[in-house]
């Protein structure tokens, strides 16, 4: 494997061929935020918070899925990047309800953490009706609160690629898009047993371990 030389935020980085911009940046401890990315999963590049500016490119590029190419000059915190990243987080926050804004569970929500980190204001965008869902507690291993879901699809990837179960799919369209089981059915123990792998990948607490009966979460 040959090496590629890139420049990230003014620093010379030598990466291996095939590495993504995100991986190259992490070699030198340049932090690029991500929500839908996990090193264990195939990059889907759908949350858009990891966007970076590449000199000469027409648009911003997702760092988690764009391969680093020899001679690339990359900015991870330019004004253009930060403006886009803040707007993306604002849009995600507008479709994300839940106690993370005020409650003790704040620390479980990566989106909320990222919003803090970027020092964005309150969302300018209106919340949309289809983004509210009742909490699903049919399954003793996975509790689903889809109002918190930001459609990052990590649970789909984890179920497919790691658990090899393929329980989740994505249905509907636009604001109404939702991670579903079969025909948007409850997650019963018939389709999903006890692995709970998806919970570890959820960045917002939309998936969580149910509280023990009679206990405190």
């Amino acid at each position, binding site marked *: 494997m040959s090496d590629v030389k890139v420049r990230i935020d003014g620093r010379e980085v030598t990466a291996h061929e095939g590495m993504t911009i995100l991986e190259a940046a992490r070699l030198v401890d340049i932090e690029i935020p991500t929500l839908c990315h996990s090193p264990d999963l*195939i990059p889907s590049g759908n949350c858009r918070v990891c966007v970076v500016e590449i000199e000469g490119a027409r648009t911003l590029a997702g760092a988690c899925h764009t391969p680093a190419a020899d001679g690339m000059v990359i900015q991870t915190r330019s004004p253009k990047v930060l403006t886009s990243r803040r707007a993306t987080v604002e849009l995600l926050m507008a479709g994300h309800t839940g106690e993370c804004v005020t409650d003790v569970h704040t620390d479980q929500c990566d989106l909320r953490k990222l919003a803090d980190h970027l020092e964005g204001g309150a969302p300018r965008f209106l919340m949309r009706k289809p983004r509210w869902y009742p909490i699903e507690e049919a399954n003793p291993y996975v509790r689903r609160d889809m109002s918190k879901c930001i459609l990052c699809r990590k649970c789909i990837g984890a179920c497919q690629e790691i658990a090899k179960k393929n329980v989740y799919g994505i249905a509907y*369209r636009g604001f109404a898009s939702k991670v*579903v089981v*079969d*025909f948007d059915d409850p997650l019963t123990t018939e389709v999903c047993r006890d692995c709970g792998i998806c919970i570890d990948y959820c960045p917002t607490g939309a998936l969580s371990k149910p509280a023990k009966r009679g206990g405190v979460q």
Partner: protein
Amino acid sequence: MNTLQEQTLLSRREQASLLAKLKEAQKEFGYVPREFMAETARALGLPIGAVYGMTTFYSFLSTRPLGKYVIRICKSIPCCMQNAAMIIDSVAAEIGITPGQNTADGRFSFELTNCIGACDMAPAMLLNDELHGHLSPGKIAEILKACK
């Protein structure tokens, strides 16, 4: 593309063949029945969620039987900016149902659709295959009265 990616993602060919099957079902049954989705998923080795997902994504595929007259109001941006919301409300008032429902007598189905390419006639709708543009509440009442 690595092997894992090849194994787990729907290939373009699979997607195309799935969509063709769903369109056939829509044509034959007037909607895509649950049993058909389950059977197709089994035949193609896909999770049911993937088949249901594709069916619900497309405005012209339906997961429930539709009535004699299918009203499809465009909800894309140009129609929205020409007050499609008012048209949606006036259809709802005329036939007493909201988008996603059928009238009890099976005469009307009320749907919202993505762009139908009639932006120059916004707000626009399809009544079965017939295009109606430059809609107003008065025009809606007239059009629907003609539906026997």
